């Protein structure tokens, strides 16, 4: 039982990271109908920004966090202008390839600027964690879970309760109709990219003290987050979150009770099962043709 609880805690912790990155995937997909393959690199870039400001320049953690997120917002805006905007009227394929290119560009730029050594980013709290009965609670995982839940609540409020959210939803549902209603579609998409970059950045900064800061940290997380997105139903916010937590918990328990070497396989086994049995995901609607 104590093992069960410990595994559950760590599974939820790592799942929260997948959920955050998955959220970024979903938002951009809803706004542009394109999977942004550079979403994982957003996390990596933000973690390196934190290393630069919090470790190298030794600024206070909160200030470094603010600057890093500001940097991510800027990156999201530039990404929108250079990677998406010029191709916005083409089919999804050129945009998709363009995001793959951007992902390679980002990881190799960081490699060239910062070098290949993995870096250490200290956690937000000074205490590494504490023992609660039989379970060791890593303080960073607690922060990750807390921030993820807070962001989910914020996101719900933003999309369901604000005019900006309604405009964003309208844009993602039908761009032409939204434009006819006077919604600045390009600006809404720009906002989506900025917000997704910041979300990915938060995920990267939160997970860095646990997984360390390395060039490939983004791609390993993004792959699982992508699986989470599909399980949840591509384009569904609640689905992405539940998918993220599900992948984290399933792979942890699969590794513990079935086989450690096949840990990564469990996530993708679930993915394949979903693709075969319920391709629309948990929350997806069965759509024969996207109009």
């Amino acid at each position, binding site marked *: 039982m104590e*093992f069960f609880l*410990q*595994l559950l805690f*760590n*599974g939820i912790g*790592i799942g929260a990271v997948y959920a955050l990155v998955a959220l970024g995937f979903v938002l951009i997909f809803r706004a542009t109908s394109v999977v942004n393959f550079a979403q994982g690199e957003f996390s990596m870039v933000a973690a390196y920004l934190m290393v630069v400001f919090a470790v190298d320049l030794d600024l206070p953690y909160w200030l470094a966090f603010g600057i890093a997120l500001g940097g991510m917002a800027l990156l999201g805006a530039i990404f929108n202008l250079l990677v998406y905007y010029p191709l916005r009227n083409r089919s999804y394929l050129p945009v998709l390839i363009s995001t793959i290119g951007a992902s390679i560009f980002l990881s*190799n730029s960081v*490699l060239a600027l910062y*070098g*290949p*050594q*993995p870096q*250490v980013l200290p956690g937000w709290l000074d205490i*590494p*964690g504490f023992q609660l009965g039989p379970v*060791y609670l*890593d303080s960073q995982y607690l922060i990750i879970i807390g921030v993820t839940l807070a962001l989910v609540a914020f996101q719900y409020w933003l999309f369901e309760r604000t005019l900006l959210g309604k405009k964003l939803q309208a844009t993602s549902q039908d761009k032409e109709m939204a434009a006819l209603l006077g919604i600045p579609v390009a600006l809404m998409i720009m906002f989506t990219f900025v917000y997704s970059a910041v979300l990915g950045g938060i995920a990267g900064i939160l997970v860095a003290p*646990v*997984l*360390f800061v*390395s*060039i*490939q940290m983004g791609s*390993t*997380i993004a792959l699982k987050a992508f699986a989470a997105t599909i399980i949840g139903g591509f384009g569904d916010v609640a689905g992405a979150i539940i998918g993220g937590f599900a992948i984290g918990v399933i*792979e*942890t328990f699969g*590794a*513990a009770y079935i086989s*450690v*070497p*096949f*840990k*990564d396989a469990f996530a993708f086994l679930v993915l394949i099962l979903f693709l075969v049995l319920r391709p629309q995901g948990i929350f997806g609607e069965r759509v024969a043709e996207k109009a």
Partner: protein
Amino acid sequence: MTITRRAVNLGLAATLAAPALIRAARADGDTIKIGMVLPVTGPAADSGKYALTGAKIALERVNKAGGVLGKPIELVTEDDQTTNPGAVLAFSKLASQPDIVAFLGSIRSTQNHAMAPDILKTGKPVCFGGTDPKLTKLGNPWLIRFRPNDSYSGRVIASYGVETLAKKNWAIVHSTDAFGTGGLNALSAALDKAGAKVAIDQGYANQSQDFTPVVLAIKSSGADIIGSYFTFDNDLAIFARQLRQLGVTIPWVGSPSIITAGAVKLAGPALYGTYGVADYAVDSSPAAKQFAELYAAVSKVPPDNYSSWTYDAIGVLSAAINKAGTTDPNKIRAALLATRGYQGAEGEYNFDEFGDGLHGYNIVRNEKGAIVFDKHIEFTD
């Protein structure tokens, strides 16, 4: 002066032809070229940087001492992207350059396995650092090893744990790649011989983000010592931290990755008090000390086995080519295998007929982040 179309064309032609002309000028041999496959990108990019630094230090030494066959040596590098296909591609790019006389292969066994068929076809010596014992027993005469293989690391880990630390109930943690599996086999065989028991054997896939299941399995297995074969620094550091968080404090003797500069820095206090087998230890010999001094002059991080084997490989290879007196691959290979008593940073090189140069390991301790030499264990059989 007016710019005519002819002038522009002439200029263009000259620009286009220049690289080819320069290459042609180089090809007629004012240098001896050695190809090097190393990771510049991908998860092992940091170790690639160390490897290159070690090789360059040796290169400078050799060139200062008059070079090879009266010419300076030159390194031609290709990125293996830390993947097997990348390594194969990198090697074939290098192999297609006829003026390269010998190569430095990978420190990763799995990549050397991947390149082995092409190496056999190319028919030139490849000095490599991977430690899977099988590599020199493939029947591929061109694979020459510059680190002690894992049959030795397994025996040293077992001998130190069983005899010195008196622990007989082992947990083995290993990567599921060629290196980790080779290590598992070597360590289990050595433990079996020493009369110790393997309580649990846990393989993991590289780039795992969470080791909780592995740690909990070790905890419940009742093992009193851990032996490990980790391939990547960040995996090792994540495991080390979770091990300590979940309250496992039994002794831990790891393969060389446990004492690399990267792992020591990432894991910090989580690795204090652990033991590692090290092919390179600063205090193990005067040659090792000299390498540390040369390395300190060009790098801020302390040297480790990523750089020491390339340093030794360039040194031994240069001496062998000089002794062979020619760049004929067969003669270079014969001279390499005839090398006896070469004092390298990793130890004394005495090649056997399989192409293994080193036959022992150092045991070192992590004392609050400093790697301290404990003892050298050499095997003659």
